[in-house]
């Protein structure tokens, strides 16, 4: 037996985190540990903000619903009125899903940039792919949690069954990925809070609101319909609604195709910018 000599200094347990020149870490193409660590941090952040992204969207969905219901006036409790409300409910679920998905990562990235904490992950062996995956997945989690909260809230006072859960899931994933990637891009591009709030007010809120969220495109004037149909968010909301109501499945394939295309494009842009360290390493 070839026993090491007693008292050999190299065999003493080193303190945690000490430099060990002999030990080389290999990450392969994707640093799974780094990705999980970053994801874990983002999810911890979310836990602290549960009030903002779970309770507030439920309240605002309830307010929209109430306002629409009373706004119907004497059409309330008529088939016509009920059709408007049935159309509205999946839209409100999608509204909180998409809004939270875009807000969470943009806020997180800009905050890390302004506080200088972004250094912690730029120094670590975490590449663009790991960062993008962690941010997008945590934003999806927030979006899905917030959409689910709104949906469960609605079940209390409004029948909102899912006609086709698989289709709902598909469009929830596609829609929140798209918005999360938009959020990552917004966080990267923004240099201060003003930029972020301008992007929300002048870009994302109009895009989300003018997407057939509250009214079917078929009832819109032709010009507006064309604008709405050029808006990728329209396909996400429409897809979620098709899944909920089980009507118009023939459009679902096209909507999914559009979303896949937009997602590939956005993820490629965000990945490239992260890889280059655009507005991160300067």
């Amino acid at each position, binding site marked *: 037996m070839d026993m090491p000599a007693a008292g050999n200094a190299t065999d003493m347990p080193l303190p945690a985190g000490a430099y060990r020149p002999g030990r080389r870490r290999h990450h392969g193409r994707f640093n799974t540990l780094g990705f999980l660590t970053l994801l874990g941090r983002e999810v911890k952040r979310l836990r602290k903000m549960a*009030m*903002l992204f779970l309770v*507030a969207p439920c*309240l*605002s969905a309830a*307010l929209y619903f*109430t*306002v*629409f219901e*009373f*706004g*119907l*006036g*004497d*059409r*309330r409790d008529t088939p*016509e*009125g009920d059709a*408007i409300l049935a159309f*509205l409910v999946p839209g409100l679920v999608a509204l909180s899903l998409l809004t939270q998905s875009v807000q969470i990562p943009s806020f997180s990235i800009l905050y890390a940039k302004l506080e200088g904490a972004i250094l912690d992950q730029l120094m670590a062996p975490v590449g663009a792919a790991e960062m993008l995956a962690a941010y997008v997945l945590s934003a999806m989690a927030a979006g899905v949690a917030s959409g689910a909260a709104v949906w469960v809230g609605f079940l209390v006072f409004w029948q909102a069954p899912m006609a086709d859960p698989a289709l709902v899931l598909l469009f929830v994933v596609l829609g929140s990925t798209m918005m999360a990637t938009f959020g990552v891009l917004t966080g990267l591009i923004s240099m201060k809070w*003003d930029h972020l*709030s*301008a992007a929300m*007010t*002048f870009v994302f*809120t*109009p895009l989300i*609101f*003018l997407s057939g*969220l*509250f*009214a079917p495109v078929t*009832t*819109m004037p032709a010009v*507006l319909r064309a604008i709405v149909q050029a808006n990728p968010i329209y396909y996400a909301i429409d897809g979620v609604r098709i899944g909920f109501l089980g009507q118009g499945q023939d459009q679902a394939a096209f909507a999914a195709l559009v979303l896949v295309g937009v997602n590939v494009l956005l993820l490629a842009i965000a990945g490239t910018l992260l890889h280059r360290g655009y507005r991160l390493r300067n």
Partner: protein
Amino acid sequence: MTMLQHSPLSGTSTPLGGPAPAPRALGAVNWVGFATLTKREIRRFLKVWVQTIAAPVVTTLLFYAVFALALGGVVRMVGDVPFLRFLGPGLIMMGMAQNAFANSSSSVLVSKVQGNIVDVLMPPLSSLEFVSAFVTGGVVRGLLVGLVTWIVIEMVVPLGMHAPFYVLFHALMASMLLSLLGLIGGIWADKFDHMAAVTNFVITPLSFLSGTFYTLDSAPPFFHTLAHVNPFFYFIDGFRYGFIGHTDGTLGTGIVVMLGTNLVLWLVALRMVSTGYKLKA
């Protein structure tokens, strides 16, 4: 320097050896201080007008478009008024109210968090001058947002003007009320989360459930009662009456409620500032 030599306190001397400066006489009201703080409050939001004026106008117009699209096809008339004319004044008022609130609350809270609140606590400003300046800032922002929104909506859907006095009175009273609420909220809050909670859970529900989007005749009795204890209902109703001559409530009651609520809030705000509640801790 020459001024100092004429100081009535020339017997004592400053560390630098010269005579001590005389205290400045301010009179009953420190007009310069009030005007300076008011100017600061107005410049504060004008500097970022894209966020403070343009953004709320765009948001309000979006709401208008959305509700017009969603309900305009089904609900053509509210009473004898077209739905779009009914909706306009309420939305203008909502924008004004929310921005009057946002202005004073964010101003006080940001100053507290950043620590530069001492800059307004140290100068010889009475609580009345202090409160008036913050309230004026909020009122000016509220009125500006309302004015711009009104001009834009008027170009698309002529709202008309039934009783200008009611429009002006309610615009002023509502902006003042919300500005005072914002000041009180900003003094009370310790961090931005508190303010976000007040906005999300108090101000937004109050403004949504106020009869902006629907006439109270079509709401269930519970919401009917709820609206009558909500000051938002009175100023939206009175403001709307000024434009289209349609009222859901009693205008006289509304005027009394507005004046009464404002008076109480003034007293609360003055008391908070004079005792230094959460300001001079």
